């Protein structure tokens, strides 16, 4: 037995890999975001550093690292320093159970779905503490918005996840993917014979994911034109950088989860070529397609009002997701009565 097969060593290797994946993604998604914004606004975007601007993340990183981390007087300095640490940990934990291919998963937990959601729910506390500890009007408004937005959108998200749980009958992410094998018509997104509203369920999940990760058009917590930078107003240098990285890490986690739950994970859309490296390729292709959609949505739609944001959740998403939940339960159980 080789040294690498020891469980603690394996976990350590995966941890380093996940950190590198998250860091690289954060760096280059920022560039992709700025390039995308430029494309949509008919300007070139960052194009000075390196060919076509591909060195821009290094320039940004060096700039952020070189800046001094300042703790303004009057802040709750302990919580102010703790918030960037807390905001980064949950997405790293969540990625530990995301299956990237049929064998590439750090820890294939039986309760993987619950694992992702329980650690995903800590994220809001970190943002809230950061905003609250800043003792700044804008940050405190942002903290209040983060909490109410997250409470509002956690409910439809969990209702959708319960629906998916009823469809798949397991919380093991790897098993959920295996069930969706054999072509794109087996993906949960297209399982209209289980629930005719399945595409609607996906849209609800995606909307909630955008809201939970505080992305435009739901970025009420950041809202740079009205709240300066919201919860991160007082943060400079790498403190700010960590919040930004965490935002992109959360987007990656959310898109991975959407891929696993609805788009068949590492399963190939044509039914074959889904093992090993092919699986990894399909998985990353789907994840990055979703991430591009997230970026595209950000620069296409204007920011919503805060009240319409909450109304959307409480008056539309929660009732609709309850309907899909009931409908799925009925369609799964009623045929059993006549068997």
């Amino acid at each position, binding site marked *: 037995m080789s040294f690498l097969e020891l469980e603690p060593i394996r976990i350590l290797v995966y941890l380093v890999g996940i950190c590198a994946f998250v860091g690289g993604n954060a760096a280059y998604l920022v560039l992709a975001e700025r390039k995308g914004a430029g494309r949509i606004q008919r300007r070139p975007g960052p194009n000075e550093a390196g060919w076509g601007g591909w060195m821009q993340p290094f320039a940004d990183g060096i700039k952020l690292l070189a800046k001094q981390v300042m703790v303004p007087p009057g802040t709750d300095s302990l919580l102010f320093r703790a918030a960037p640490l807390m905001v980064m940990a949950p997405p790293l934990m969540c990625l530990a159970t995301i299956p990237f291919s049929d064998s590439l998963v750090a820890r294939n937990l039986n309760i993987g779905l619950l694992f992702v959601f329980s650690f995903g729910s800590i994220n809001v506390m970190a943002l809230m503490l950061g905003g609250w500890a800043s003792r700044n009007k804008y940050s405190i408004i942002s903290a209040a918005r983060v*909490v109410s937005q997250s409470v509002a959108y956690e409910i439809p998200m969990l209702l959708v996840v319960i629906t998916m749980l009823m469809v798949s009958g397991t919380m093991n992410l790897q098993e959920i993917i295996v069930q969706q094998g054999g072509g794109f018509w087996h993906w949960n997104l297209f399982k209209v014979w289980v629930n005719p509203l399945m595409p609607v369920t996906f849209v609800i999940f995606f909307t909630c994911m955008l809201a939970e990760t505080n992305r435009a058009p739901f970025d009420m917590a950041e809202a740079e034109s009205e709240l300066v930078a919201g919860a991160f107003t007082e943060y400079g240098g790498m403190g700010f950088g960590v919040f930004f990285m965490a935002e992109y890490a959360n987007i990656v986690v959310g898109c991975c989860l959407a891929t696993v739950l609805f788009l068949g994970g590492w399963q190939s859309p044509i039914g074959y070529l889904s093992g090993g490296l092919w699986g990894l390729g399909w998985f990353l292709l789907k994840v990055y397609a979703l991430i591009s959609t997230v970026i595209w949505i950000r620069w296409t739609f204007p920011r919503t009002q805060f009240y319409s944001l909450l109304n959307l959740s409480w008056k539309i998403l929660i009732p609709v997701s309850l309907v899909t939940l009931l409908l799925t339960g009925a369609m799964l159980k009623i045929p059993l009565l006549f068997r």
Partner: protein
Amino acid sequence: MTTTLPFTDWLVLAIFALAVGLTLAGALIAVLTTRIIRGVAGLMICCIGLAGLYYFLNSPFLALMEILIYVGAVCVTIVFAVMMAEPDESPSTQPVRSGHWWGAVAILIALLIGGGLARLALAGPWPDAPIERVNDGSVAALGASLLTTYSLAFEAISLVLLVAILGALVIARGGPPPHPGPP
């Protein structure tokens, strides 16, 4: 697994100590701090430590539920309440006189409960039978046991929610306390 790392025992012990330390430190922060927001943060740390202890007791489901419900829901809800308070509250300098008495009573009750539990754990009979899996831990098995064996506990939890709603109604009906006018 036959081969293990040479220091596995120490690693496990260190993680156990981390979980216990987080629980104790979080509880102490929650109790001793004068700023209410730090109290919530302490409660959060305490719950994460507790989740670690549950994980050590081979109950990953319970551990994750602890995080999902207590950190993700209860603490966030407490924060909701905290946000009604003044953001830049100064810690009160004058100790409340009756606070000492209540503190003594609370310590007495805590000692009684803690001592009783410790005595039960140390002196009480432990089952000698080897640990075995009750079920396969699947969602179906979990749901079946929640709705049959543990249905009383499951229903009792909803009573707690009812009490919480009633408490919120009672507090909300009273309205905000009258603003202290100029003397």
